[in-house]
């Protein structure tokens, strides 16, 4: 087995810095209202893109299971709400899809 320590430390650095710098630079400064709205929209646009990316990048053989799993999570959280139930329902749906 190779050691991946150098890779891990490099990844640590490039993961940590983008998380840290905005907190330090923005937390004490007044922000333009339009830019503030831009920042407040990000949770929704980020989630939309992350979900779509997840479904599109599903590894081969997992496409249908991922799509159905996410669909079940959508339906479940729309009608019932609750993260826990949705996640479990989704994993079970993916499992059933893969088993068929």
């Amino acid at each position, binding site marked *: 087995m190779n050691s*991946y320590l150098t890779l891990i430390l490099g*990844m640590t650095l490039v993961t940590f810095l983008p998380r840290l710098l905005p907190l330090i630079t923005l937390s004490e400064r007044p922000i333009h209202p339009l830019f503030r709205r*831009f920042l407040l929209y990000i949770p*929704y646009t980020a989630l939309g893109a992350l979900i779509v990316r997840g479904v599109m990048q599903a590894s081969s053989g997992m496409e249908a299971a991922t799509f159905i799993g996410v669909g079940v999570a959508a339906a479940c959280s729309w009608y019932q709400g609750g993260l826990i139930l949705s996640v479990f329902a989704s994993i079970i749906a993916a499992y059933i899809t893969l088993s068929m």
Partner: protein
Amino acid sequence: MAGIPIVIGYFPVAMAFGLLARTVNVSLQDTFFFSLLVFAGASQFMAIDLIKAGIAPLDIILATFLLNLRHLMMSASLAVRLEEIKKRWLPFIAFGITDESFSVASMKKGALSFPFLMTLQGIAYLAWLSGTVTGYLIGSVLPVTLQNSLGVGLYAMFMAILMPEIKKSLNVLLLSVFSGAVYISLDFINVLPSGWNLIIAIIVASGIGVMVLKDDPGEERI
């Protein structure tokens, strides 16, 4: 309490990571260090994928950097909602900013306090670490189809975070659908390095949202 759903969602995903790392011959110690030091689900999965493909470490680090640029925006979006916090605590909060903890934190109303964020992120971190080790050690005993199904939990979690907000606000629906559409277009055009598609989709969709939408779905939370 807000951290509990993250644990439920994170644990199986972390297990999937531990499992996958083992299949590409990464040692248990290194797998643990990935989760301990990097603490970024998408990046870690991508790294395993690239290790498997024999990509050079420097290229993996660059791809990780691109993938994590989205946290610049997430971190900036949290920064405007933080309570007064001593500067020396900021690195701890920063370390715990993941897609999931960010999503939960950003759906919370009111200013974000240090204890809230530390609890949320601390629970997520512990779930991530314990899930990684569990997956590495016992994951291979699970049936293969169940192993594969665990990873879907990640996107189910994103969906379950987004959906309650969509029910409350048409703007949220428009923003997320539009962002997804931009991502699909970028993916189809395929001119950008893949890590950039997500970042550009978020920027473009949020920017157009600022220009087109009138009221502000996040306003009540400021």
